């Protein structure tokens, strides 16, 4: 985490309308990939054409969790691992709100793992963007459930003795209706996947393999931020529509990217309304009138 002095006379950014510009500069390190992912999220949100007052962002704790503090939407920076249950309450209280969750691999899959499993099982209608940088960045680079076997972190100096999760496979197994993975270098595919995920009715999940040059890269001798980004891109192989259990993330061989799941099934609210014979507020179908920002 570094801080920088505010730069004066910066020309307007195309995403300024969606940014809390008074909070810039952000806290992310030089070369960090989170900014790229954040840009893709902003572009995807802008692309939907939805009224910004009907979109909320919820995050957990960690470097990625800070996104919620920079976006000019109703935004909630919650406790470590608890973004999903918080978002569940928010969504059910206000079903016509589009809820986006952004958080890191440690937040979503270690301390928040149980919540992830159940939010996906319930098919809560929300979009999760997970920045996977293979370690805990905010606290200085510790081992995470995504850390590759043998990779060095401050708490695995001889190499991690644990096998990591395949996050996309986990999401698919738990019932997510949309699952995709890209590296932070594949900006167009990433943006387009986040757009699709936002438009998706149900629990959608996008994993982004993201360089953390200050911690993970440095301890594993992966070079500069740019080298790291190119390395991930170079290792990536697009294999859309394969079984996510075969979509491995092996930084020594290949990182399988693509869209692995795109399906439909009833959401929690669909079932809730049906079993209770309720006439609840309808989920906002993504018709053209919404794209105009009704």
């Amino acid at each position, binding site marked *: 985490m570094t801080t920088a002095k505010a730069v004066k006379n910066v020309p307007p950014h195309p995403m300024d309308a969606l940014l809390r510009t008074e909070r810039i500069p952000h806290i992310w390190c030089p070369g960090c990939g989170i900014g790229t992912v954040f840009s893709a999220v902003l572009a995807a949100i802008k692309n939907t054409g939805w009224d910004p007052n009907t979109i909320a962002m919820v995050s957990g704790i960690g470097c990625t969790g800070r996104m919620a503090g920079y976006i000019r939407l*109703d935004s909630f920076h919650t406790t470590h691992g608890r973004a999903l*249950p918080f978002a*569940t*309450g928010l969504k059910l209280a206000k079903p016509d709100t589009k809820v986006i969750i952004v958080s890191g691999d440690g937040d979503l899959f270690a301390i928040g793992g*149980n919540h992830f499993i*159940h939010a996906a099982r319930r098919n809560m209608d929300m979009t999760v963007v997970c920045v996977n940088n293979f370690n805990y960045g905010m606290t200085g680079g510790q081992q995470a459930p995504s850390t590759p076997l043998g990779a060095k972190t401050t708490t695995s100096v001889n190499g991690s003795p644990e096998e990591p999760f395949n996050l996309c496979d986990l999401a698919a197994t738990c019932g997510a209706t949309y699952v995709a993975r890209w590296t932070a270098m594949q900006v167009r595919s990433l943006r387009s996947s986040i757009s699709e995920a936002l438009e998706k009715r149900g629990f959608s999940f996008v994993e982004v393999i993201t360089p953390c040059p200050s911690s993970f890269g440095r301890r594993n001798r992966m070079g500069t931020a740019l080298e790291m980004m190119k390395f991930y891109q170079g290792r990536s192989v697009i294999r859309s529509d394969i079984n996510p259990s075969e979509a491995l993330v092996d930084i020594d061989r290949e990182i399988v990217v693509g869209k692995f799941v795109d399906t439909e099934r009833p959401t929690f609210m669909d079932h809730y309304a049906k079993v*209770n014979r309720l006439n609840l507020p309808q989920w906002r179908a993504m018709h053209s009138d919404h794209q105009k920002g009704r």
Partner: protein
Amino acid sequence: MNGDEACCEGALAAGCRFFAGYPITPATEVAESMSRRLPEIGGIYIQMEDEIASMAAILGASWGGVKSMTSTSGPGFSLMMENIGLGLCTETPCVVCNVQRAGPSTGLPTLVAQGDMMQARWGSHGHYEIIALSPSSPQEMFDFTIRAFNLSEYYRLPVIILADETIGHMNERVIIPQEEDIEIVNRRKPTVSREDYLPYEADADGIAPMANCGDGYRIHVTGLTHDDRGYPAMDAKAQEKMITRLVDKIRKNRDKIIRTQNLYLDDAEVVVVSYGISARSAMQAVRDARGEGIKAGLIKLDTVWPFPEELIRGVAPRLKAMIMAEINGGQMVLELERAACGACPVSLVSNFGGAILHPGLILNAVAKAAKEKP
């Protein structure tokens, strides 16, 4: 109906339309009632994966503009501490009902205790003030649950109902008033434009108007120490300012929040202080003592937090003794000693849980204290 069911009906009467919970004895009947009743009136019941998630979900629902609550018992209350802290820091109205059982750990799941009093006060990390109410009957479960919602909406914080297994499972008549006779308080909404709105800028009484998600104010809410804009502010000055306001909004309104029911206090020489189910044992003991000609009195704490220290400080100097009756190893008695401040002797009648206090035990303590020379 039983106390747990009365809690559910009180919540619905107060306007609660979202419940997230996890089954746990002896609070399960609150969730069961909610799961049956909420869909009937267009509300949402969701059974979460654990109590951590339940607490997080009711905070989310509250920011969605819906009055929300959860219920639990000791083990679940422990898990909720993390997000009770988030609710306090972000000033989120909601209600947590803890139907206490004996602990620590799994303890006696089906049997009564009052061992979570200090946990309710200090269980989440950091410094804060809290509001907790302790009902002594199913009727009070109903009434206090409504009051808990009103206090939470007005003062913007999670309000805790510290019930106990006996009250939760006791069946008594509960009178539900007509809708128009029930006082309902709703959160204060901002009246200024989005540009002028500062989410944590308080009015004169220390309470900041609250914009819900989707109201167009595009709020940022964080559990980090924050400034009036709601933005993280990482320094001692911001911490001092924020916590001072969080603490003062309760401390400075103590007289409006604190409620006690006092019996025979005017001429009492020995006063029993109690709450929850123990207050009923205490009331019997005090009546029996009066029957024996002992000038006994009772202070029943309807609000256990904040503790009524001014009241105690006022009466202690003219008493022979004060006695705390509670089902734990002595928790609220510490507050009683602190408030009495040596002005009269303070003692404890208690057990560690599993059974309610026999009125005879309290009567013996009262009779003994009454014989002491002042």
